[in-house]
């Protein structure tokens, strides 16, 4: 079995590269919480190295520590040595899964249902999404909540139920045509990734993304049915499933025909840009994955690159604040672009958010696997949002939007604050502009 040890299969110098300087410690939310070395990036890397060296077994404690890590990658931004913590963590989690050290049958069923079934089958996902939507629309959810039936659910499911986001139908396939052309002759041709969660819960963001791209001279190609990018799988140690999804997605596009492949979800984007690494040993797909990686852009990155046009219409006196999604900021190193887009909006008062670079506790499935720590981080985030006095919170990742929106809804100070993606604000401004300047010309 030891030959298969995923941590051993890594290039050892990746593990060795951490030179224990501790520069990453102050940026790590889990170290901040416990002050225990093993809950720090440096400590976790040391544990991985001990496992790779065969000095430590993959124990339950090891597994818990890997699961306690948010995967927020703040440590990689802080690390001057350039340690690739994300890859190390994926492999460590992969090793934990492979060895099956944690989790009874319930955890396995849950993981299987989500990672192996739901997130791998977009049609099924939409079907589940549709019934979830109906269930919410018809008020069954609130009736059941009132009856207290939810208390009968096992703890993890209960947390999940409480956090069940509101599904927004219709989905992207009904909102966005397969090919849409801008009004003026197209300057660029881009593919739009509509995501899976994004598609279920935030399909208006997808529509807004398409609109903003169109307004900036892009022809937008959106395949009707897309696969989950596989980031949840990779981040949770299911590397084979992640590879399978990556191949399926690569099959959908003729990469050479596009100037860019646009993602509007920070978490997905950071994974989508690493297909080549994921498919490193796949002789059939690797070359295509390399080409793909070069074209994937976060929507804000792309818009800034092509010189996004400032909308003319003023919204007037709106105070907006921006929360950096971890995977956009630390994973993709995209810090300035979303802010640059927000600054283009006329009449918007952009106020800084304290600790905007600090995780909100959403972190993929973290709010389900580590509800306590997740809630603490969310509370901290809400405090900072309240301090800004903003009425709009913008962020570039559906997971974060879901988590923060969920928290704000239950917080009387913040119940009125709107959570949205920066491109939604841009799209709205363009729309206002179109309706004012209209075919008649003047306002």
């Amino acid at each position, binding site marked *: 079995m030891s030959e298969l040890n995923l941590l051993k299969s890594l290039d*050892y*110098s990746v593990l*060795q*590269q*951490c*030179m*224990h*300087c*501790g*520069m990453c*410690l*102050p940026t790590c939310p889990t170290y901040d919480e416990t*002050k*225990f*070395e*093993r809950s*720090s990036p*440096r*400590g976790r890397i*040391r*544990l991985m190295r*001990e496992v790779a060296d065969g*000095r*430590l077994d993959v*124990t339950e*404690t*090891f597994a818990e*520590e890997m699961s306690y890590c948010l995967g927020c990658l703040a440590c990689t931004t802080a*690390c*001057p*040595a*350039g340690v690739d913590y994300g890859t190390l963590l994926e492999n460590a989690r992969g090793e934990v899964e492979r060895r099956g050290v944690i989790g009874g049958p319930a955890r396995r069923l849950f993981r299987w249902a989500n990672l192996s079934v739901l997130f791998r089958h977009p049609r099924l996902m939409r079907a589940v999404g549709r019934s979830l939507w109906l269930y919410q629309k018809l008020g069954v959810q609130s009736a059941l909540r009132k009856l207290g039936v939810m208390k009968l659910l096992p703890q993890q499911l209960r947390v999940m139920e409480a956090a069940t986001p509101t599904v927004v139908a219709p989905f992207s396939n009904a909102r966005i045509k397969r090919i849409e052309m801008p009004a003026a002759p197209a300057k660029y041709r881009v593919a739009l990734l509509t995501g899976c969660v994004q598609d279920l819960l935030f399909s208006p963001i997808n529509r807004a993304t398409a609109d903003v791209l169109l307004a900036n001279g892009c022809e937008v190609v959106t395949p009707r049915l897309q696969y989950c990018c596989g980031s949840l799988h990779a981040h949770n140690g299911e590397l084979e499933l992640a590879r399978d999804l990556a191949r399926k997605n690569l099959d959908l596009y003729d990469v050479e025909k596009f100037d860019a492949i646009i993602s509007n979800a920070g978490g997905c984007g950071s994974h989508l840009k690493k297909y080549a690494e994921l498919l490193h040993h796949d002789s059939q797909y690797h070359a295509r994955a390399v080409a793909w990686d070069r074209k994937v852009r976060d929507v804000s990155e792309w818009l800034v690159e092509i010189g996004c046009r400032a909308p003319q219409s003023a919204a007037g006196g709106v105070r907006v604040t921006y929360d950096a999604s971890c995977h956009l900021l630390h994973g993709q190193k995209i810090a300035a672009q979303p802010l640059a887009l927000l600054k283009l909006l006329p009449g918007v008062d952009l106020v800084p958010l304290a600790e905007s670079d600090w995780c909100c506790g959403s972190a993929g499935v973290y709010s389900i696997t580590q509800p306590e720590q997740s809630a603490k981080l969310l509370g901290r985030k809400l405090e900072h949002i309240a301090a800004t006095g903003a009425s709009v919170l913008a962020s570039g990742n559906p997971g974060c939007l879901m988590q923060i929106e969920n928290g704000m809804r239950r917080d009387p100070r913040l119940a009125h604050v709107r959570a949205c993606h920066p491109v939604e604000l841009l799209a709205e401004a363009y729309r206002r502009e179109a309706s004012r300047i209209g075919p008649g010309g003047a306002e």
Partner: protein
Amino acid sequence: MSQTVVSLAEELAQELGVDRVLTAAEDLAVYAYDGTAALRQNPACVVFPLTTAEVAFCVQTARRHRAPIVTRGSGTGLSGGSVPMEGALVVCLNRMDRIIELDPRNLTIEVEAGCITQTIDETAGKHGLFYPPDPGSRKISTIGGNVAENSGGLRGLKYGVTRDYVMGLEAVLASGEVVWLGNKCVKDVAGYNLRDLFVGSEGTLGIVTRVLLKLVPLPQARKTMLASYTTLEAAGETVSNIIAAKIIPCTLEFLDQQTIRCVEDFAHVGLPTEAAAVLIMETDGHPHVVAEEAAAMAAIASACGAISVRTAADDAEANKLLSARRAAFSALARVRPTTILEDVTVPRSELAGMVAFIAASAAKHGLQIGTFGHMGDGNLHPTYLTDERNADEMHRVELSLAEIVDRTLAVGGTITGEHGVGLAKKPYLKQQLGDNSYQLLKLVKGALDPDGLLNPGKIFE
């Protein structure tokens, strides 16, 4: 686990609770190291006291079990000071991190030993005050660790080192007794200065639990500049000439090309990656003086052959430049898997020659090296970029290190300017001090810790 370890841990847990006493294999593995990656030894147990009384209890308990004690802050030390010895109890102070009192009338701040260095400066800043010592690790190092190592930093040239700011401290002795040394008086000559004895004692004389620090007024203005050179010697000469011109800037930091490239790779602050060396220079104080000194320094740099001298436009840019410099050591780890850092200081008149000697020694042994340092203090950090798995290469590193140490001592320098002796430097201490002084040090240690309980195996062979 041996019987004594079990009962030591049990006794501690009974008093402090199981959450604050760690014995799991996973925990021991991560308290085996500090910032010196090559040294490693698992302790027997790790404990997190929250008060001085609890620290004293830990010492007394360890005493009864004859367990060696290693005090630990954040483990960023670079001489192996907090690397445990076998069977040791690690007393980790990082949770004792309260600010106890900021006294603006006496310009002092009293903090617990686990307080993070940067937090102290930021707290002082809110009152228009300033805590100058700023080791590169200031974001995470603890003041206890700074006191124990007498840490220097980027501003050491003008403001001095940690010792110059410690007015008083509380320590738990090897006997378990608690002492306060020093006070808020600017002048005090009552008895031996034992306070200073504890500063730089590397956890071998007592566990520091509280520190009373001197603060200074926040300088009104500062100017930060970046000078680039085509030769190492020209940078060295600039430093010598600035000092000779009787200017004491607050910062004169040196980076060689290897270091510039690694730092730029990480921080993207626009360092000139083709330059053979750069100096980061900063002057602070009254706006007039700052303007004058900055102009004079820029002129000296140009006269010494700097190809460009750039001034940071604002505080944000200056801070970026300085934090980039603070990342130098860690950034060098980008090149090869193992980085081995030296910490030699020479009289400033010897700097240019020393820089050249280091480069030549590395070349002679076929080694890759990056050199940076607090050049204004004469404190250099030549850093070998190696792979610990290559035995032959490691042997050559040793040869080169010994050469550098010999040369340092020959020109009247010291084997460590700020990181301490710890495990890494103990073979050289006697060489520097000579027999008599070395024995005197041992006498002091024997008087305060007769049973050799506190951080045994450090400093002395």
